[in-house]
């Protein structure tokens, strides 16, 4: 009798020194189904996929394909078995065309070694028609949208006749409309008999598209449920191990006077000839959290760079606490009461090879508390200060103050940055995606800290891509689209759908701030 399962991973256990990354995990993917794999960061999703791709060998457990036991020693074995994956970060050559990327590695060649592109093109066009994957085979990757790049990745799998398709957090980079399109493509693929494994931590998407869902938590198998028979609350409780308070508890805001005023800010883009930020004006008052929402790449990063001094303004004016800081240096802005939790904690936020204590003083090392008059570091004071903040903000690390930042978990790295930035007692806190890549516990913690800042009468400017965060945390939402602020919304009165329309540029108001 033929097995109903395309691929089965039975009782997989994978240990690393000190931790069990996968503890007796079973995942059975039926033929033609969309199966979600749900879990927080560190739950063991990536390890399990690495085992499936032969990057790691499991100590215990078996993998079956169509009911037969198989041994996967390296990614080539996985390819041979028809397993393909769309990675979160696309593996495409930017300056090649869509077609070149699709055939790369399996190029059809004639006897003399010449490429047979015509053959390949026909196959790609046929596939793209069959599954509704709209792409231009001759466009260069660098010129097309992220959604189209993702479709190229999907075509790459189909071109190789893969039967088992794995999508690793595919919606993180897409607009709400592109997400809908992707969902439809996934349904088409499943209807044609492909088996899909969909890795995600976004519950709404799982409920919308998946047939079944397997949940992992801290390396353990929690269970597999039919999405028809469950609710989002139940799934999240399975994922986190307790009932999560999705809603951020906060009192109504009591805004005071304006602390940060941006008027007519325009910033040139480094990537294209247009301006990344176009004539943006807004105000942030004491005791309120203002959120700038929008899809990634609509000028939010540049806006923050302009605000914090990392990039110069083409025109416009920034007033902080009554002082014009438009031309002030980064250091000057920092000492005048602006704190900045950067978007990328590895790129900007930390010197990863410095110890935790050295990272804690990164913004204040020049203070007479940490540096003596002739320029020697006061190491005792630094250690005391660092120990104090570690205690106060509950930053956990292997060796305390002397731990190398690189050796800390993402959540604790972020906590260290937050400790450093909040300890400066800023008038304005600019927090850019402060919860990116963190687990639910850390997210709750960070949201509480933001609200505490607000309640202490400080101004908070939050830049976020996560819809849940945008709806829950701020008191006011400004939506950014293609470098402009296209709407101001009250999170209590608006809906995710309305927000989505603004974010996608389908709706806009004349905003006079």
């Amino acid at each position, binding site marked *: 009798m033929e097995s109903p399962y395309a691929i089965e991973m039975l009782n997989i256990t994978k*240990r*690393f*020194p*000190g931790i069990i990354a996968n503890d007796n995990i079973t995942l059975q993917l039926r033929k033609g189904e969309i199966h979600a794999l749900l879990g927080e960061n560190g739950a063991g999703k990536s390890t399990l996929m690495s085992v499936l791709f032969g990057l790691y060998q499991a*100590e215990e457990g078996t993998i079956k394909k169509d009911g037969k036991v198989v041994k996967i020693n390296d990614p080539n074995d996985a390819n041979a078995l028809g397993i393909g994956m769309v990675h979160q970060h696309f593996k495409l050559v930017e300056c090649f065309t869509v077609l070149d990327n699709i055939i790369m590695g399996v190029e059809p060649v004639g006897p003399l070694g010449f490429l047979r592109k015509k053959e390949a093109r026909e196959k790609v066009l046929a596939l793209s028609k069959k599954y509704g994957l709209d792409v231009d085979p001759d466009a260069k990757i660098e010129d097309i949208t992220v959604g189209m790049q993702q479709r190229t990745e999907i075509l790459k799998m189909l071109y190789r006749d893969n039967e088992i398709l794995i999508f690793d957090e595919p919606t993180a980079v897409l607009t709400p409309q592109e997400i809908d399109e992707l969902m439809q493509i996934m349904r088409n693929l499943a209807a044609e008999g492909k088996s899909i494994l969909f890795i995600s931590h976004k519950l709404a998407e799982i409920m919308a598209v998946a047939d079944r869902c397997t949940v992992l938590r801290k390396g353990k198998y929690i269970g597999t449920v039919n999405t028809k028979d469950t609710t989002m609350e139940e799934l999240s409780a399975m994922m986190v191990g307790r009932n999560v308070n999705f809603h951020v508890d906060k009192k109504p805001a009591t805004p005071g006077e304006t602390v940060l005023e941006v008027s007519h800010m325009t910033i040139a883009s480094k990537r294209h000839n247009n301006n990344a930020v176009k004539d943006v004006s807004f105000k942030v008052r004491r005791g309120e959290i203002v959120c700038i929402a929008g899809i990634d790449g609509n000028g939010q990063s540049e806006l923050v760079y302009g605000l*914090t*001094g*990392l990039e110069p303004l083409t025109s416009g004016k920034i007033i902080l606490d009554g002082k014009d800081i438009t031309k002030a*240096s*980064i*250091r*000057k*802005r*920092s000492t005048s009461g602006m704190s*900045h939790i*950067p978007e990328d904690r590895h*790129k*900007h*936020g*930390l*010197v*990863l*090879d*410095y110890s935790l204590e*050295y990272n804690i003083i*990164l*913004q204040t*090392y*020049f203070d007479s508390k940490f*540096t003596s008059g002739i*320029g*020697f*570091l006061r*190491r005792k004071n630094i250690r005391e200060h660092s120990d104090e903040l570690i205690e106060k903000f509950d930053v956990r690390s292997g060796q305390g103050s002397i731990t190398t930042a690189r050796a800390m978990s993402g959540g604790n790295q972020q906590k260290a940055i937050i400790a450093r930035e909040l300890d400066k007692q800023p008038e304005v806190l600019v927090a850019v995606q402060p919860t990116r890549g963190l687990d639910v516990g850390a997210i709750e913690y960070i949201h509480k800290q933001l609200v505490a800042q607000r309640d202490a009468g400080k101004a908070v400017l939050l830049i976020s891509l996560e819809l849940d965060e945008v709806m829950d945390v701020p008191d006011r939402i400004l939506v950014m689209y293609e470098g402009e602020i296209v709407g101001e919304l009250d999170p209590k009165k608006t809906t995710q759908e309305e927000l989505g329309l603004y974010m996608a540029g389908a709706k806009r108001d004349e905003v006079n701030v």
Partner: protein
Amino acid sequence: MKKLLKRPGVQAFVASIICILLGLLIGYIVLLIINPQGATESIFKVIQNFFSSKRANLRLKNFGNTLTKTIPLIMCSLSILFAYKVGLFNIGAAGQYVAGACACLYAALGWGWSWLPCMLLAVVVAAIYGGIVGLLKAYCNVNEVISGIMLNWIGLYTANTILSNVKETASPYTLYLDKENPAALLPNIGLDKLFNNATVTIAVPLALIIAVAVEILLNKTRLGYELRATGLNKNAARYAGMAENRNIIMTLMISGALAGLGASMLYQTGYMRWECTQSSVPAMGFNGIAAAFLGGLNPIGSIFSSFFIQHITDGGSNVNTNFYSSQISDVISSVIIYLCGFVLFIKLTMNRMISRSEEKKGEKN
């Protein structure tokens, strides 16, 4: 044992020793291939260097010679490692060394300055010469390796031209410092008597002090904190409001100053004269790269690695010339110096082996 091997300091030391042994082994093989008869004797001559001298006071004198030549090498390796810690590869140290040599020699022979002003001029000129590389890097985004190499050549021919004014008429060498202007020679502070060698000077203790000073500057001061942060993560340094461009220029100026001081510490001992027709940049600056890496990129380690490299180079001149042509000494010492550059590679391999054996252990448990 494994725990010990995991400590970075121990690792650097072990890796350096492995490199030295490998270098000696390959050098020995080269000797064997050329002429198996004298190989064993010669390789021992290389390792022994001054120990092979028969008389005690000659041994001491040769030791002094090695020491004198070690000093500029220490300074050049400090120059390289200082810039390297800030994320810059200052291959221009060789040119900054030349600039320093030119400045102190011309001040001594042309203007008749005494030793200290000559030395300070060498430091200033070399710092400015390094600063050019820094300016180009900071404001025009010119890679420091490219501009460094070009400035090496510019420096060499400029030095040849300038120093031709103070050279002997009959030879391409500059005038004898001890005859023309003995006041420009570095003071011996009694070391000449100790070593029975007039070229051993104040430069020796000074270089040791500077090595310690570099260590302190990098690890215990605010400037060192800033510079290393810039080297480790330029973006984070900028985010923290550090003046990145100023730091780059300052780093290359300090780096240049160290190399220039090294030149002054050799040429002002009277041990060597400048050859105004030389057509290649003195190797000192380049050997500094090997010494810096062999020393585990640690200022104190640089002292020992520089001494070792100079020891081998001098030892190379003792090989039996009946069996080998005289250039063989260069071949052997270059092989060893070349291998010295592999310290990082060996460290990496060691780490990989340790983690692999740990993973295996983890699987067994």
